[in-house]
């Protein structure tokens, strides 16, 4: 006999939901990374959430309030994340879970949400199959194939030989696989692949290896933050650009919040991604302006901050639709049909079938705008694009 986690928790969560139907305070558990080496990424989510709550926190039906509970998962630390999620569900009786930078953490939390019937809105963790782990998971961020696969197809037209360097964990493996598939199917040649440990800080040896293999381009994925900067600097220090090697990748490698730290080495780097602080949509302009007003003129929101904003918008939408009386299954129904034509990153919607995000993917180039580095959007490579990986790996 196989022991499933008991359904007791479901009963508890349901009774909590019923109990709170009269209370009208909706509790949202926010899990992000506040401490440890990767607190920078967590900070982006935190800033996006808090900005939304500050500006839109009152846009709720009369008598309805939200109470966010912020908790720290200390980094890519699945067991801590799982414990925190469990406590938020059992002890704080939250009606939503959101946040989560790291795929391993989200993968550890997802099964709990299936047991507890707590809607879980992922605001970053990109591992493609997480929504399949629980019917209560929806994702507003992205998957790596969503950007890496079209980039691969596009790169095959431009570059004959590519070297791939990715972070050694699930999202890295997915980015690598998706890029290579798109690239090879379109006729490109992969001259080498390296996987970099997640804790690595020195990219010089890896980039030297790339340089020695003499490709036309290097495809990179790393989990943003200071790793993105370190890799970019190594690219510049070793003068890979002068050796005729183009630096391309998913948007993580030129994340807006870090971009100014990277220096001129980043100029000309090409990425495919769903969000750029330099995007000239009106919704984005007002978002960036609000962000700068709140956190300082020098700071740019990165894609995680923008996604956190959207995640909160989605949650507020479903709270409004239910007038504060949250029913998990009805919530999921509403989420499946969520559309926002005017997000900072352009039109987005949730795919009713996979509960994953549908969005535009932009090809961007790092350029100087008003003396500052920016990811300038060149073209939309895919419009209202679903995660291609779920098409290639149909659920059985």
């Amino acid at each position, binding site marked *: *006999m196989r022991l499933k986690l*008991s359904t007791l928790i479901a009963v508890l969560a349901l009774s909590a939901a019923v109990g709170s139907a009269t209370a009208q305070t909706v509790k949202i558990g926010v899990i992000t990374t506040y401490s440890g080496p990767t607190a920078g990424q967590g900070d982006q989510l935190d800033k996006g959430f808090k900005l939304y709550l500050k500006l839109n926190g009152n846009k709720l039906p009369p008598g309805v309030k939200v109470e966010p509970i912020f*908790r720290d998962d200390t980094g890519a630390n699945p*067991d801590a994340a799982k414990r925190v999620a*469990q406590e938020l569900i059992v002890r704080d009786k939250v009606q939503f879970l959101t946040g989560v930078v790291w795929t391993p953490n989200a993968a550890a939390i997802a099964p709990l949400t299936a047991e507890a019937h707590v809607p879980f809105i992922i605001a970053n963790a990109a591992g493609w199959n997480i929504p399949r782990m629980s019917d209560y998971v929806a994702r507003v961020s992205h998957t790596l194939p969503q950007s890496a696969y079209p980039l691969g197809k596009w790169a095959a037209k431009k570059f004959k030989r590519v070297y791939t360097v990715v972070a050694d964990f699930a999202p890295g493996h997915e980015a690598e696989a998706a890029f290579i598939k798109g690239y090879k199917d379109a006729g490109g040649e992969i001259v080498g692949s390296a996987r970099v440990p997640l804790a690595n800080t020195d990219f010089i040896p890896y980039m030297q290896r790339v340089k020695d293999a003499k490709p036309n381009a290097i495809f990179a994925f790393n989990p943003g933050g200071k790793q993105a900067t370190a890799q970019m600097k190594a690219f510049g220090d070793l003068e890979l650009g002068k050796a005729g090697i183009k630096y391309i990748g998913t948007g993580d490698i030129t994340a807006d919040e870090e971009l100014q730290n990277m220096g001129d080495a980043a100029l000309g780097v090409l990425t495919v991604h769903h969000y750029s602080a330099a995007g000239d949509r009106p919704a984005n302009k007002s978002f960036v302006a609000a962000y700068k007003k709140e956190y300082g003129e020098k700071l740019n929101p990165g894609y995680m901050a923008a996604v956190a904003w959207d995640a909160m918008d989605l949650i507020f939408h479903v709270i409004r639709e239910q007038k504060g009386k949250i029913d998990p299954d009805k919530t999921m129904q509403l989420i499946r049909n969520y559309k926002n034509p005017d997000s900072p990153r352009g039109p987005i919607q949730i795919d009713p079938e996979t509960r994953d995000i549908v969005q535009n993917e932009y090809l961007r180039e790092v350029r100087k705008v008003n003396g500052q580095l920016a990811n300038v959007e060149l073209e939309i490579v895919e419009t209202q694009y679903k995660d291609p990986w779920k098409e290639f790996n149909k659920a059985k």
Partner: protein
Amino acid sequence: MKHAGGYIADSRIRAIEWLPWAFALLCYYAAPSYLSLGSYILTMILFALSLDLILGYGGIITLGHSAYFGTGAYVAGIVAVRLTGEPLVGLLAGALAAGVLGLVTGMIILRTRGLALLMLTLAITSVCFEVANKATSLTGGADGLGGFSLLPILGLFRFDMFGKTAYLYCLAILFASWWLVRKLVYSPFGASLTGVRENNLRMHAVGAPVYQRLVASYTISATLAGLAGALLTQTTQFVGLNALGFQLSGELIVMLVLGGVGRIYGAFVGPLVYLVLQDYLAKRFPEYWYFGIGAMLVLVVLFARGGILGIIDAGILRLRRKS
């Protein structure tokens, strides 16, 4: 410092020693929504108890005890994924694997002392970390190992999501381990470890095979650490690389010293206070909770070397002197 054990110490269990157990059971009924934190605390108490055996009694400072904790955790996880969901099998396998690793590594490193020993423990846990990170097919690498489920314990008690079974399971294992450690501490073997800690050189001079005795205690300690790791895996149904990180070892020392070293119950008080405080601070100040932890450490070292139990001792002594 007041250490338990020795040739004139009364080894019978005093009434006050039942207090932690009564308290643990009380928590079970009084704070049902805190049981997952409770299970974690019980697990860390067991881990701290294992450290107390070598730090408090053997005098070995290690930054690498998580090597054994993590080994136990991963072996229990791998057993659950590949072999059987029977919890006791995973528990024993985890403890055994950690014990074997403890014996082998102990034999290698315990010939050194001081900084070299500290660094060797650190390096060993780092090697284990890298191995687990790389053996992705077995351990899941940086993504961790999850997605397994466990059978009811002895076919009777199912793990529930409230963490009730998990809590009592941890409590039972901790109780058994405590009983064993207590026996050891009050035995001639335990007394001889006290001698090693107090004066390594003199212990040689009275003809004690110090190295063999340290290896033996190290192995027992590693086994208990592995048991704790396996418990963590089974109660959270997940193992991540952090179980092998040296940060965990550092945190463990902090917890033990906070409670008081070399007196068994320091290992109970320290993790309880540390983790409850951390839980509270992390909720209140998710960005800055470690400032409080750091300040507490500095204060303990400057003003309360014996840890919390040391403060209590001093307080009792003062009261007695007054009366």
